[in-house]
């Protein structure tokens, strides 16, 4: 049996171990809820993390392209990036996949047959961790962006008026066009 085939067979058990590992970072009663409530709208955190992990495992097995992998990772990291964790705590779950795989493989008689494949797989997990770090940073930057944008949106007419007075004084521009332009630039066009 090939390494990938073995991994595919073990996937449900690996996924369970991996999911349990991330649940451990939440308070016990919450972990229980995140695990049991299957309705994705009643349990956005648990279901997003679970389906993200499931898809990530599939992607690793299928050697999907980095963009696809990024998308699934993004779903999980985006949540962890605003929760009560330090950056390392947020992202440690990625490495937990290695533990889950090794633990599941260890019981297999032919597990020792693929040292090269196992290392290659773990390298992919390491790459996943680096991608997770990039996503994490983007999420954090976004939070700071939101703060700045919101303040600007909140007072748009007031700022616009101040700009209009300035522009009207110094340039010969049709005010109406300027208002529409102002609206467009607010939307970042």
């Amino acid at each position, binding site marked *: 049996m090939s390494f990938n085939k073995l991994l595919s067979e073990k996937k449900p058990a690996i996924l369970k171990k991996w999911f349990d590992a991330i649940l451990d970072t939440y308070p016990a009663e919450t972990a229980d809820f995140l695990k049991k409530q299957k309705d994705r*709208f009643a349990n*956005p955190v648990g279901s997003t993390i679970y389906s993200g992990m499931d898809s990530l495992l599939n992607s690793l097995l299928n050697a999907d392209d980095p963009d696809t992998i990024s998308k699934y990772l993004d779903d999980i990291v985006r*949540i962890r990036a605003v929760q009560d964790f*330090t950056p390392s705590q947020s992202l440690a779950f990625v490495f937990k996949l290695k533990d889950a795989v090794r633990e599941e493989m260890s019981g297999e008689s032919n597990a020792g047959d693929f040292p090269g494949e196992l290392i290659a797989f773990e390298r992919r997990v390491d790459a996943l961790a680096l991608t997770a770090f990039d996503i994490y940073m983007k999420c954090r930057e976004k939070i700071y962006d939101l703060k700045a*944008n919101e303040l600007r949106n909140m007072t748009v007419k007031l700022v*616009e*008026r101040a700009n209009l007075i300035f522009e009207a004084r110094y340039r010969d521009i049709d005010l*109406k066009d300027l208002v529409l332009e102002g609206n*467009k630039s607010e939307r970042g066009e």
Partner: protein
Amino acid sequence: MAKFTAKPKDLIQIDFKNPKTGWMDTPVEIREHMFCHPAKAKELETVGFPNIHEWRPQDENWNLPEGWKETVLNGIKERLQKYRSFHVFMDICVRCGACADKCHFYLGTGDPKNMPVLRAELLRSIYRKYFTASGKILGKTAGARELTEDVLKEIWYYYYQCTECRRCSVFCPYGIDQAEITMIGRELTNLLGLQLGWIGGPVANCYMKGNHLGLEPHTIKSNIEMMLDDIETITGIRINPTFNRKGAEILFVTPSGDLFAMPGIYTAMGYLMLFHELGLDYTWSTYASEGGNFGFFSSNEMAKRLNSKIYAEAKRLGVKWVLGGECGHMWRVLHQYMDTWNGPADFLEVPKSPITGTVFDNAKSAKMTHISEFTADLIKHGKLKLDKSRNDHLKVTFHDSCNTARGMGMFEEPRYIIKNVCNHFYEMPENTIREKTFCCGSGTGLNASENMELRMRGGLPRANAVKYVHEQHGVNMLANVCAIDRATLSASMDYWVPGVGVAGISELVGNALVMEGEKERTADLRGETLPGKEGAE
């Protein structure tokens, strides 16, 4: 993100596990990005809040006023006598847990103290200790505990992580309403001068100038003038609304966010266009220039004081009835409190649409009607000429605001309007809309920027449902009837579901409204070129 203070040895420790302790034995940790800054002394002085002092939530010492414990306990006692609901809510919870996983803050933070039942327990434990025989004798066994400074901090921290949205109450077999318990909890913190800047500031501005940002009459007028310029550019029609006009039939009151904030201004443009097209005999007021009421997030008395200007202005101007714009908590106040606080407004008439003749009996006593009720009635009677295709670039879903949904039971009117002005409308999943709607995550004065993480966590359940319709149907516009939603959901979408905009329903109406004498529309109210009209003009 937790404050990054990990020591080098912690950095390699990836086996982070949460400690397992009971809630009473888990001390509160006031975390950065989860709370709002305190109010400024000047703001609190303006409205005469007690015990104003310097303090910061993250500090060990909150400089609590002398005798603070008695103040809180007396405050509880007084409120137990005054509000029967509060007394009942303190007694009857059977801890069945039905509410536990229904709060958006619990779902997003995973913090058990954000379970509504535990949030209530934070205060209930004090009630038991000082106001029940079993609690006095049995203490912790009876779920009672001493009121200490840490306990007070805990109540403060978690009562400003509740948006009083009432979702939990929908699931409680006893109808226990955490929103009301939170209101009382916040009143208690206010007795000690522990107000938030984001609430204290708007309250003071509203008291002095009539609206949250403290806009003066000339600023209000010139902001509206600029919208009129935009409307003229888009439609070719110059609108001339009136301000503070005595003898108008209708007084129009809307949240001030519609006057200066993005994307609320497009909603306001929609109002202006609709009223012009109807030839409505109405007036804006630069005094009753705020429908919203942040006093409601401080105390009952403060809310009542700030609300009084609406009837006062209606009386001064001699109007017949009051029409209100798109807002959430504003309607909770108008619908459930205004009449008993500042009524009866017997100098007003029962609202009657001058266009259709419909009498809004549901507002028989309060004399104020919601713009969505008014507009839906116009559409029902075929009084508006609408070109739905002008919203064809939008795939719309509707977010029920907590207050208009659970606070006044308005579910159908907004949907009816959307379906009549848009061709593409998609509902979010059933357990996230109507009476089960998820809060935007930033209501009740929590829409500051320093607590953005809290807001994103609380906003996740709503955003998660939007993401679903975005992926399933390509939804790109989240419609709503609330000024706070328009501001806060914009941030939430930006983080959770990029590519989805936020709009008030009256904006969509304005897009579709065919106005007498208008030029061919090539852009929507945002100045965006309509599909197929590129190069036109």
